[in-house]
């Protein structure tokens, strides 16, 4: 059978997958007695209809860029990191410890230190599964899942017994000092012309976009990136070329965990300004869908993160204004992963048939 042209492989395959996910989502809504068109209207109004809605959409997208990049880097090394959720939560702990440790003089200094803390803690949480995969052969998928549960329990302990100020009832850390508060988009000259009301999207958005460029450069413009991709394509060939599998596994997972941890500067430092329980709210898992949808390319990840930002903000609006439960977001997320990640062969086969039909029709006309 003919192969798909490159442009179709890059654009049509994800778009058709998305279409399938959308159709099934609509059917799900119909089957629980809701109107899909009404739901879509609420989502578009709430997520894209105003600068305020965009402020939330971009805020979620920022987190998803980080976690999507995290999954992407691991994927290129042939590793499936499902632990982004736990790594993001522990990254949040890193942010909180940094922010609470000093009366920060200015947010720029605090941001640099907190970013380092987030990346370091996230990477540390990925380090143990990475080591176990590289040295002991324990499957990274199972260990990272276990580490998500362990992280959740650890955060309960830390927030209830360690970081909670005396006299406070809810399990959360103290508020961060003023010097550690990040400017939101409505505080930044230029952006403030668009965003006149306070929005949660903040300066971290720019860091996320910068990280997308950095990850692209790392993967396709450095020796390490080449080694990561070679290892992911063929472990045997990479070993033969002198690439150390233990080293690449661990480094790729450290980068992945660091990126997942860094999402916490967006939600913990930029928005909540204190550490709350379950701070990452599933963003680590969304990274999987974002990476698959974005075809494991940083540029695709940014686009897919925007799409999921829309889905997330739109889904929250659904929970607010309609009787559709907020869990609809998880259904859509599962469908996108199913069609872009597991059934992409099906989508490709359908498209190949279509292209073959068009070609033979052309050939007939030419003859």
């Amino acid at each position: 059978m003919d192969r798909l042209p490159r442009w179709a492989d890059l654009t049509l395959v994800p778009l058709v997958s998305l279409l399938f996910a959308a159709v099934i989502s609509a059917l799900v809504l119909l089957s629980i007695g809701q109107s899909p068109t009404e739901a879509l209207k609420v989502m578009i109004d709430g997520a894209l209809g105003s600068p305020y809605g965009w402020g939330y959409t971009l805020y979620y997208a920022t987190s998803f860029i980080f976690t999507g990049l995290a999954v992407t880097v691991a994927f290129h090394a042939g590793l499936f990191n499902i632990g982004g959720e736990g790594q993001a939560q522990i990254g949040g702990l890193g942010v909180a410890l940094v922010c609470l440790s000093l009366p920060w003089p200015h947010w720029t200094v605090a941001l640099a230190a907190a970013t380092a803390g987030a990346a370091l803690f996230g990477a540390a949480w990925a380090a143990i599964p990475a080591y176990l995969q590289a040295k002991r052969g324990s499957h990274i998928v199972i260990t990272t899942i276990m580490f998500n549960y362990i992280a959740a329990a650890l955060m309960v302990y830390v927030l209830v017994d360690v970081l909670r100020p005396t006299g406070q009832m809810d399990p959360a850390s103290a508020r961060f000092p003023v010097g550690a508060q990040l400017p939101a988009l409505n505080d930044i000259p230029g952006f403030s012309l668009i965003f006149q009301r306070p929005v949660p999207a903040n300066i971290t958005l720019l860091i996320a976009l910068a990280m997308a460029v950095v990850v692209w450069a790392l993967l396709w413009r450095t020796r390490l990136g080449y080694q990561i991709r070679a290892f992911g394509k063929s472990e045997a060939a990479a070993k033969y070329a002198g690439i150390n599998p233990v080293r690449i596994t661990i480094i790729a997972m450290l980068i992945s965990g660091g990126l997942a941890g860094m999402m916490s500067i967006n939600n913990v430092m930029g928005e909540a300004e204190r550490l709350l329980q379950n701070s990452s709210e599933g963003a680590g898992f969304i990274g999987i869908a974002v990476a698959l949808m974005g075809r494991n390319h940083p540029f695709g990840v940014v686009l897919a993160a925007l799409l999921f930002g829309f889905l997330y903000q739109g889904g929250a609006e659904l929970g607010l204004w309609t009787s559709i439960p907020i869990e609809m977001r998880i259904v859509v997320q599962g469908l996108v992963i199913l069609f872009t990640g597991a059934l992409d062969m099906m989508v490709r086969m359908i498209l190949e048939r279509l292209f073959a039909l068009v070609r033979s029709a052309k050939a007939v006309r030419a003859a």
Partner: protein
Amino acid sequence: MDYATLLQVLDTTVRLATPLLLACLAGLYSERAGIFDIGLEGKMLSAAMSAGAVAALTGSAWAGLLAGIGASMLFAALHGLAAITFRGNQLISGVALNFLASGLTVLIAQAMFKQGGRTPPLSGDARFNPVTLPGAEALRDVPLIGPLYYEVISGHSVLVYIAFLIVPFTWWVLFRTRFGLRLRAVGENPAAVDTAGVSVIGLRFAAVAITGILCGVAGAYMATALQAGFGREMTAGRGYIALAALIFAKWRPVAAMWACLLFGFFQALALRPDVVQSVVQMKVPVPLLDALPYILTVLVLAGFVGKAIPPRAGGQPYVKER
């Protein structure tokens, strides 16, 4: 810890090990046939919701069980479609189906019952109630063995006994029948099975279907025996712990039973912080106990597994040569 407390903990161990065991055996069939399945969790969850809903509507636990098996089989069929027919990534398919189950169960339960994504509490015949084994009352006063028989072995729901009977049955199917031989062969060397004129696709779909049935029983047990109704995310990672037990047991049925009993024991300990504290003579934070099954899973995977060699063709789609 006195003998009575020990028996209580062991009793809880058996109850908590049962869903793990059913899910673990479910994974065993699938993985022995060369299909990785990290979607055990989602299948259990969908089965728990269906079983809880149908049991609440009909008042019959058995109808609930059938509905649970049906829902789980549906997810298994989807996994088979993605992993076998369209040769997709089996891990990603499992993750996708887990999310799908997590969202859909709440959506459907909310649409049906409007109780915040739960199913109504079950009672009477809508649940699988404890069965007293013959002679349990009579033997109760025999020292040591009597209370052990009465407390730990007797007094569980019928699904518990079914689960433990499936262990020798699975051993017999896998190692003493032609179907079992072919199932194992298709997980090690599908090309050889194909050459012998046996359908690889057919065998793998059969294995995935058995996985669906057993996960269905596991989920139904969660909602209609262990607890009285479905609650969101009620499986709480049991599908993954079952997978860890499967690796720990090196894909063997009897070892799987011991592994699940061990993990069930960890879960039982997490429910009894007072017992743990009196044994170790120290205050133990409750979150640590909650995390204990997961931590021990990692330790087991890291250290004591030795060389766990999975079925050789595991995770690889089979492409017939043309």
